[in-house]
């Protein structure tokens, strides 16, 4: 009995072994090509719950059932399934995932297999983004995707970028792409931590974007953040240190002695009434020769440090996965006192609660702070340290004899520019932003193939801008201190209810999507703006200590309600089609047009799935795609359709102190205001060769924007200048190609490369009552207060207009020049109708265009054993820039540009810098001319519009450039016990730029708010060259 019992016990104990015929297998996983062990690869038994990961030598062991199938997978490699078939030892070679065709791509409201996509979508992997030294996703996107133009509007830490997909689309509505993070629409890229990004998809054509309806017209960028991927805990730490130096580009300034001589020279020319007294004595000039005066660039710019620390933990435990990361990022600006820092935290949880309910929670919080004096083009340029350092006389010292900051001398040099050092370091300005993003979804698996996702998202922003301009600053000097504090609270809420149904009947695959969605946003801000401070020291911490106090507040809210349906159908993976329709209702539009409808459709033919190509060794994928769709742009402010009466400061109507508040009727109502809509057609084809080692994609598209939101002009006599209305249309056509190699091998060397080229041009078709619309750059930058950028019916978008400068009048051309009242050495302009006058009516013409002919990006990645080298070239070709800041810099009276020394003289005629004639000789010249030409008096016939004398192509430059944007060299150390990955890298950003441009940087757009202003350089914050050292450790 005892034996029996023992036997039974044995049987009982062994039963599982017998029943499941367990066996121990072991093996090693290596990388194809290099033979390096793959660490942390996961090995699981298919259909069971057991699994393991490889150790530091790539070895594993696992107990599996007999004849079990095991799946070996590792991120970035193709997964393999192996039937153990009784074997116990395995040598597994993993091949790198060369853009796996089964890859799933995130699309609007769901995912799709890459091979099933019929729209134009560019994908970027998170890993590619983190290779760059930048901690900004928008900047990392530059040069990475065809058809995507990323402009750094300024080089400031935390500065603005413009992301434009497939050219301009809208004038008033803006051209910035819609950002969607984990299904949550809106938000910006600057504040996100790039290390958290799993993937990024750029949706370009209407079949992809139309399901975002009224927000989709400018393209959509979908971002998916990381989830826990590994059953083994992964703890990663990275640190990055960078050193930045300012890049002067084409800006060259005079030294003090030259400047003093030039100033004396110019002063001496004004000799009509008297011979003027020289401003600088010879002794002073000699002294400047010795000391060199002040180099204001050296004074206000510095070598700046950047550091980043990042820690993340991720794991998959049973039904729960999590990814948690924290980052500290601190970037000093190259301009003194400027900087940006960010603390951010992300927690992503996903869980299968039951087999019919899943949940996911993503939370992202960040605190960002921007420091430093304001320098945007909307502030008074005189107090802008960037502008001041480019225009303040080098003959002035930093401090005067009494130790105070020097002031501009009214007798010479720039009359109003403020001391650059004071402008940079004296303002105390801090712009803080708290970002709180929460995103929760529940996935209900209702029936097989039928799921419902209910998603709720909230983004809460709390911003606090505080600044104090003390009496040593430009504005604070006159006003005895200016303290402001603006706090705003912005709330964005979104609820999306997404019903998805998938059905496969034989070779017919259906996918149906239905969405109901509500988005609501509200902003409330209050501003305190005080002047005339009794105590300077306390600044904005004690705003009450001031004599002049102003407060204001503003509030606006908007709502968007949407319904959407989409059907995808494919037959045998060969013929693919999709249709969608979205209805959007928005509060911001006129009473009569609250709702808009946005349909789209697409067709795809995967030729490589046809019998004649299937299994072809050369062609692994070939697909033709075509799409059509309507998208909208609702980017106008709230309450634009109502007639509003606004407060406009106050005026001392009673006389004496005090004032009464002014209100003014400032808009007319427009109950018919509605969406701007864009119809886009796209044709594309993809081909992949040699097992996807080579990939090529080409697209052509055409976009027609109608009902364009524009300011429709009202008669000035009505007391208003314009009303926002749907007038006008534009058409954009363009093409994109991208070419990719995925891991071509030359022995141990592996090369991956991606080249993308794109081009688009936009024609203005209709502008309502206008024949043209004109844009000026304001008076900032000391240049052009009159319009120079034009939208003209029938002409391309981005035209610059002005007088065409054709060099200087030369010796021997006196007779011809005299007809225009000019002399040799004066500027010469094209007289289009040859009437002997240069005037606005006849000679004003197109002198350039700010749209590039070609946008290019070329990234390369070389690996050799444990070494990796990658670099990225990017650039634009064929765009013009209006260099507004050069006008002031080359001013014959006050400019600091070294080019002034090349002034035209009879000895030096090969130059573009006009002569400066003295007034006495000018009068003598005129009298002599009048004596010999009594029929035609010597009068200048250059009749420029009021203050429009600078609107000439002399200031227009070729903005083409090619830049080695980034180069990085890294080394992966062999794994040591406990450390699965250790990587050291060194990289350099903005390595060199090939360009003829004479400003700081050709990648400029001082005006980011309006596409109409692109290509205007009023000396924005310069770019820097940064060298970074980085360390990554993964446990």
């Amino acid at each position, binding site marked *: 009995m005892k034996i029996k019992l023992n036997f039974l016990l044995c049987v009982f104990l062994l039963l599982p072994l017998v029943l499941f015929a367990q066996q121990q297998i072991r093996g090693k996983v290596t990388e194809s090509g290099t033979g390096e062990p793959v660490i942390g690869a996961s090995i699981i038994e298919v259909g069971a719950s057991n699994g393991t990961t490889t150790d530091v030598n790539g070895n594993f062991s696992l107990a599996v059932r007999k004849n079990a199938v095991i799946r070996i997978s590792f991120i970035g490699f193709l997964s393999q399934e192996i039937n153990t078939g009784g074997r116990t030892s395995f040598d597994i070679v993993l091949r790198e995932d060369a853009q796996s065709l089964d890859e799933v791509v995130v699309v609007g409201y769901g995912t799709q297999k890459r091979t099933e996509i019929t729209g134009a979508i560019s994908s970027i992997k998170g890993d590619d983004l983190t290779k760059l030294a930048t901690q900004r996703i928008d900047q990392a996107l530059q040069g990475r995707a065809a058809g995507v133009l990323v402009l750094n509007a300024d080089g400031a830490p935390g500065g603005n970028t413009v992301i434009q997909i497939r050219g301009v689309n809208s004038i008033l509505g803006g051209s910035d792409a819609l950002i969607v993070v984990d299904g949550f629409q809106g938000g910006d890229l600057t504040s996100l931590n790039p290390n958290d990004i799993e993937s990024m998809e750029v949706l370009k054509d209407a079949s992809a974007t139309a399901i975002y309806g009224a927000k989709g017209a400018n393209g959509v960028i979908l971002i998916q953040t990381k989830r826990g991927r590994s059953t083994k805990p992964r703890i990663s730490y990275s640190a990055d240190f960078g050193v930045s130096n300012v890049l002067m580009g084409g800006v060259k300034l005079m030294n003090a002695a030259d400047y003093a001589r030039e100033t004396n020279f110019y002063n001496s020319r004004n000799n009509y*009434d*008297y011979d003027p007294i020289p401003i600088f004595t010879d002794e002073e000039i000699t002294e400047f020769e010795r000391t060199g005066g002040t180099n204001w660039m050296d004074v206000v710019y510095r070598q700046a440090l950047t550091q980043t620390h990042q820690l993340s933990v991720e794991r998959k435990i049973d039904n729960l996965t999590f990814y948690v990361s924290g980052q500290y990022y601190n970037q000093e600006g190259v301009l003194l006192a400027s900087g940006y820092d960010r603390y951010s935290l992300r927690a992503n949880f996903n869980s299968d609660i039951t*087999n*019919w309910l899943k949940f996911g929670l993503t939370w992202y919080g960040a605190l960002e702070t921007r420091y430093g004096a304001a320098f945007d083009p909307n502030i008074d340029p005189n107090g802008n340290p960037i502008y001041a350092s480019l225009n303040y006389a080098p003959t002035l010292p930093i401090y005067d004899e009494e130790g105070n900051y020097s002031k501009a001398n009214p007798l010479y040099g720039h*009359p109003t520019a403020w001391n650059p050092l004071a402008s940079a370091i004296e303002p105390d300005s801090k712009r803080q932003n708290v970002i709180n993003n929460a995103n929760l979804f529940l996935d209900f698996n*209702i*029936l097989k193939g039928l799921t*419902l996702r*209910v998603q709720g998202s909230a983004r809460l922003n709390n911003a606090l801008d505080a600044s104090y301009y003390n009496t040593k600053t430009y504005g604070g*000097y*006159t006003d*005895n201190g200016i303290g402001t504090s603006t706090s705003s609270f912005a709330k964005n809420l979104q609820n999306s*209810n997404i019903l998805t149904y998938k059905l496969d009947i034989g070779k017919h695959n259906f996918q149906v999507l239905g969405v109901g969605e*509500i988005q609501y946003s509200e902003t409330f801000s209050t501003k305190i703006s005080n*002047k005339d401070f009794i105590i300077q020291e306390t600044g904005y911490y004690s705003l009450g200590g001031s004599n*002049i106090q102003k407060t204001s507040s503003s509030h*606006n809210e908007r*709502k968007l*309600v949407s319904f959407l349906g989409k059907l995808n159908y494919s037959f045998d993976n060969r013929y693919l089609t999709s249709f969608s329709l979205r209805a959007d209702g*928005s*509060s911001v539009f006129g009473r009569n047009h*609250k709702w808009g409808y946005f349909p789209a459709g697409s067709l795809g033919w995967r030729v490589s799935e046809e019998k004649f190509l299937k299994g072809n060794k050369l062609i692994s994928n070939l697909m033709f795609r075509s799409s059509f769709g309507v998208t909208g742009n609702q980017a106008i402010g709230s*309450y634009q*359709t*109502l*007639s*509003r*009466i*606004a407060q*406009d400061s106050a*005026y*001392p*109507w*009673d*006389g*004496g*102190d*005090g*004032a*009464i*508040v*002014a*209100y*003014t*009727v400032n808009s*007319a109502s427009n109950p018919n205001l509605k969406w701007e809509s864009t119809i886009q057609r796209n044709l594309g084809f993809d081909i992949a060769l040699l097992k996807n080692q080579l990939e090529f994609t080409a697209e052509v598209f055409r976009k027609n924007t109608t009902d364009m939101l524009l300011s429709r*002009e*009202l*008669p*000035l*006599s*009505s*007391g*208003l200048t314009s009303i926002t209305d749907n007038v006008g249309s534009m058409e954009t056509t363009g093409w994109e190609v991208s070419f990719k190699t995925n891991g071509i091998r030359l022995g141990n060397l592996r090369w991956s490369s991606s080249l993308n080229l794109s081009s688009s041009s936009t024609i203005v078709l209709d502008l309502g*009552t*206008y024949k043209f619309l004109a844009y000026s750059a304001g008076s900032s930058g000391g240049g052009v207060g009159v319009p120079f950028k034009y939208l003209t019916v029938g002409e391309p978008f981005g035209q610059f207009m002005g007088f065409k400068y054709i060099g200087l009048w030369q010796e021997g051309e006196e007779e011809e020049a005299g007809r225009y009242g000019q002399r040799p050495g004066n500027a010469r302009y094209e007289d289009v109708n040859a009437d002997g006058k240069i005037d606005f009516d006849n000679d004003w013409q197109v002198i350039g265009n700010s749209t590039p002919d070609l946008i290019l990006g070329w990234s390369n990645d070389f690996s050799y054993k444990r070494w990796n080298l990658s670099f990225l070239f990017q650039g634009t070709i064929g765009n013009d820039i209006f260099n507004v800041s050069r006008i002031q810099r080359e001013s014959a009276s006050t400019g600091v540009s070294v080019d002034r020394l090349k002034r035209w003289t009879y000895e030096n005629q090969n130059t573009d810098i006009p002569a400066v004639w003295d007034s006495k000789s000018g009068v003598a010249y005129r009298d002599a001319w009048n004596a010999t030409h009594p029929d035609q008096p010597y*009068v200048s016939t250059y*009749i*420029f519009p*009021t203050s429009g004398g600078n609107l000439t192509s002399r200031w227009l430059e070729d903005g083409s450039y090619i830049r080695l944007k980034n180069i990085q060299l890294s080394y992966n150390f062999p794994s040591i016990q406990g450390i699965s990955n250790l990587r050291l890298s060194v990289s350099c950003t903005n390595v060199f730029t090939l360009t003829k441009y004479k400003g700081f940087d050709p990648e400029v757009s001082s005006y980011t708010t309006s596409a109409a202003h692109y290509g205007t350089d009023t000396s924005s914050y310069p770019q820097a060259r940064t060298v970074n050292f980085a360390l990554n450790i993964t446990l």
Partner: protein
Amino acid sequence: MKTIKYLSRKTTLCILLIFLLSGCELIDLEENPRGVVTADNFFNTPEQVESVLASWGRYTFKPWGRTYGYGPDFERHTDQRGGNLLIQLDYCATFFTKHYNSIKDLNFAIYALQAGQVPVTEDQYNLLMGQLKFLRAWNYFQLVRGWGDIPLLTEEHVPDYFNYQLTRTPVAEVYAQIILDFQEAIKTLPIKWSTDKKGRPTQDAAKALLAKTYLTMATAPLNETSYYAKAADMAKEVMDAGNYSLVQDIDKVFSFETEYGPEMMWSFHANDEYPSTDPRVWTPLDGWSDNAPSIPWANAYPEQPRKGAYLQLYDKNGVHYNTRKRAPGIKKYLYDTKENFEKYFTRINIPIIRYADVLLIFAEAENMSKGGPTQAAVDALNLVIDRSNGHVENFNHPRANIDMWQDEFDLKVLRERNLELCFEHDRWFDMLRKRSILTDVRESVRPNFDERIYLWPIPEAEIRANKNMTQNPGY
């Protein structure tokens, strides 16, 4: 498994139901602005009506009182340096725009007041209406002189104000409206405001501006010479009323003590909180050269106490402008403290109408309407001349007398206007109404003279958006 499915269906249903139920309210897309004022909820109190008077200041002080210093060169060709007499399209478009901006607000307020929308007593009503009409008249007076026939919008257009594309109203009809408005202002404005409202326009200010209107009507372009008598009578009313008088000390004509009388009748106001323009613009000697008086003009200015009072002849170190070889400054506008000047800040007012102007209007109108100078005309002119000479005989700048010819006296009055009212926006309009631009401007710019200059170009934007609008001849 079945339960689960059942449950999940139920859950789904619930969620859909919640969504649909709440949807009814959520789907409401009407806008409900909370921080924005619309025409429906404004102009309901006297204070709200008064805010439009302030809006007049916001719109017009900037072009006339602040950027004027840098902007259009009304006087560049005569009393100031620079200028070329070339008037291009959109010249002075800002002025055109700003006057109509203000007229719009005034019309909305007049409309609301007339419609009984504002709960006011009759006195309050009259005071408000008087000020509104006074300002509207002044705006149109500036416009009609600059541009000639112009669209005339009044409170009658209000309900559909932004949909009109009006044709040009002839100059005479515009003047008729101006006269009506000033007359109503004269009827309703007080002789004197309380001290805390000392800067508001008085009955006499309206009369003075009406006199100026009549005088302008008597000259080009209307040349209705019958209006000389009306101008003289209206000016005489102001003189006889005795509410205003000349400041006898020439150095005190422009000063903080005299900003609101007895000579100053109405001006653009500034104070600590709402300052005037950067004072450096008024002094090439210690500041910039934007607004520099012409040196030949300054050298020709008769030597008398007024020259040193109105022009800054010496820089801050006491060096004469001819020694400094720079243009003199405009001392009229430099009466704020040295400390404020050093801070690039000034609180000075910019005059619009003052008593000296009334005397000169009277002298000119009386002489022209009576066929030659009368004793009253001579006396009025001599009041200004005597003060300019510091009340002593001055051979550089002799008094007028009854024996002068009509033409001779007229020229002397205009010369006196130039000297007395220099840089007060008057010179250009005097040249317009006397059609004397060609003879008055510097010789060097004469080749650029063109008859069209007597009217400024209608701004292009007005022509583009108003299909009934035509451009002035020659542009």
